[in-house]
């Protein structure tokens, strides 16, 4: 039916009255951004939601498959098999790298962690507008939760990786414990970048279309399939290029993991000052990304 009635003038109350009434009873403005310490406190209060959401996403992934959660380990194993077939058998790209298959598979898994964290981070807000528009929680919970999901995925991959390492005769050693600090640093870095991307992606969803190209370029310069150390040894590279290749956070985290896991990957193959660089990147991205994300907290899911 067509309602062409003239709507009567809306009821108006003197604005001062209402403002005073609200102030008198200590009401707060709805939807204002909390202070940074308060934001951190809220986020901490939601930690169980963050982990539960990540685990739920992870399990929901394969819930329709007959093999179910077996795919969590099968998928990385199959991935590794494909890379082995192409680079190890067909192309034979060993290029003087000892234990090439463990070298390659470690690189692929560690890179995938960063890559997919950034990819899901970009869509963390723009892809979950329903959630953002329906429920109240510190929005940083979303990118962090997605990164935790990727971390869980990586842990399954690491289980597969251990099998592969043992099959290729890499001995178990104490240096494997270094995996833990390396992963913590990488996770902090990933979460920070994911939060930066989440803010960009929330404002301009088109960025999600660009990310695959940027990430692929990043992968090729990060020494996932080749050894940066072998390349930089040849002196004809400009110094700046060498430095850039060596301080690239993805390369740093990949090499740390290789150093921790593979006995033939020696400390001297690591870029100089590798641990300070790894910590620096994690702090820069983690703290910077978090503050950058919080600055736009009240704008997510709106407009």
């Amino acid at each position, binding site marked *: *039916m067509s*309602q*062409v*009635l*003239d*709507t*009567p003038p*809306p*009821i*108006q*109350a003197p*604005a001062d009255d*209402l*403002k005073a*009434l*609200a102030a008198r*009873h*200590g*009401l*707060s*403005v*709805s*939807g*204002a951004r909390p202070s940074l310490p308060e934001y951190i406190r809220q986020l901490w*209060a*939601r930690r*169980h*939601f963050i982990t*539960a*959401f990540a685990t*739920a*996403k992870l*399990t*929901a992934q394969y*819930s*329709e498959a007959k093999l179910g959660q077996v795919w969590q380990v099968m998928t990385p194993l199959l991935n590794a098999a494909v890379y082995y077939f192409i680079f190890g058998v067909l192309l034979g790209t060993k290029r003087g790298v000892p234990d090439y298959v463990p070298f390659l598979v470690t690189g692929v898994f560690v890179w995938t962690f960063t890559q997919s964290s950034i990819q899901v981070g970009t869509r963390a807000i723009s892809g*979950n507008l*329903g*959630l*953002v*528009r*329906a*429920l*109240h*929680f510190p929005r940083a919970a979303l990118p962090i939760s997605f990164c935790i999901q990727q971390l869980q995925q990586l842990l399954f991959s690491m289980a597969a990786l251990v099998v592969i390492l043992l099959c290729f005769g890499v001995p178990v050693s104490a240096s494997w414990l270094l995996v833990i600090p390396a992963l913590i640093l990488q996770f902090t870095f990933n979460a920070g970048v994911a939060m930066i991307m989440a803010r960009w992606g929330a404002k301009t969803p088109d960025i999600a279309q660009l990310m695959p190209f940027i990430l692929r370029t990043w992968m090729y310069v990060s020494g996932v399939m080749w050894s940066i150390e072998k390349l930089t040894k040849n002196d004809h590279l400009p110094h700046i290029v060498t430095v850039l290749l060596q301080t690239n956070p993805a390369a740093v985290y990949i090499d740390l993991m290789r150093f921790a896991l593979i006995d033939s990957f020696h400390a001297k193959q690591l870029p100089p000052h590798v641990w300070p660089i790894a910590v620096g990147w994690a702090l820069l991205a983690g703290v910077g990304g978090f503050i950058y994300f919080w600055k736009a907290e*009240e*704008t997510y*899911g*709106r*407009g």
Partner: protein
Amino acid sequence: MAEQSERIPQTTPQQPQQTTHRTQQTGQSMQSERIPTVVADSVDIVYRVNGTGTGRGSATAALNRIMRRKQADKAAGVRRVHAVKKVSFVAYKGEAIGLIGTNGSGKSTLLKAVAGLLPVESGHIYTHGQPSLLGVNAALMNDLTGERNVYLGGLAMGMSREQVKERYQGIVDFSGINEKGDFITLPMRTYSSGMAARLRFSIAAAKDHDVLLIDEALATGDRRFQVRSEERIRELRETAGTVFLVSHNNNSIRDTCERTLWLERGELRLDGPTEEVLKEYEAFTGDKAKKPAPKKAA
């Protein structure tokens, strides 16, 4: 058309009567100092919609939009939709307030703004605590079992793990999911739409809210569940604060709310006791034929 223009005089005299009711209300609040939980102070809400460029040139419009940014929204094909216009009201503790209005009159938008999920263009919304929209469904995942969704939904609403554990059985019993067998351990995608809606309501209603905003939730589920939901809403009102209910079902408004706001085209037309407002509203929407039916059900 002639009929409608006849109705104008019917609603206009209502206006003064309405204002008297309003002053009477504020008079009451002065006496017993009722505690306000939500104060809306001449609230305007405007949506900006991208990509409304017509026909050819929508790609150029997109470019325009990026290039010009703030300058000319209109030239770049951004349309402004003024969804809520100068709405003011005060909601008090212990009240259940119905929100009615024809489709697209701005009810849900107003609710989202009260929840702090939409920005206001001008005016202010002050709230006591954090109002929550009864909309836990967005956090639930169809591929997970009902059981895990209860946990996930509870945590998403900000309950602690212990609270969820404590209330788990209550939520399942209330939803009645297990009345016809052990369905709670099945994935939610296997539920009928009614069952899923019941579980969603049960999860959302399990938390004690300061201000609870419900958007058409009671329309789902069978009659038995609707009665139970209405009871639960009454409980929530007693224990905590204020309940807002958006519904096209005048019966559920009648059964749960004693005060009703009528929004039409984004403007607040009436604010008063449910019976009075509904009478006007039903006259406006012209369902005179349906009028006897609600009385029988209520």
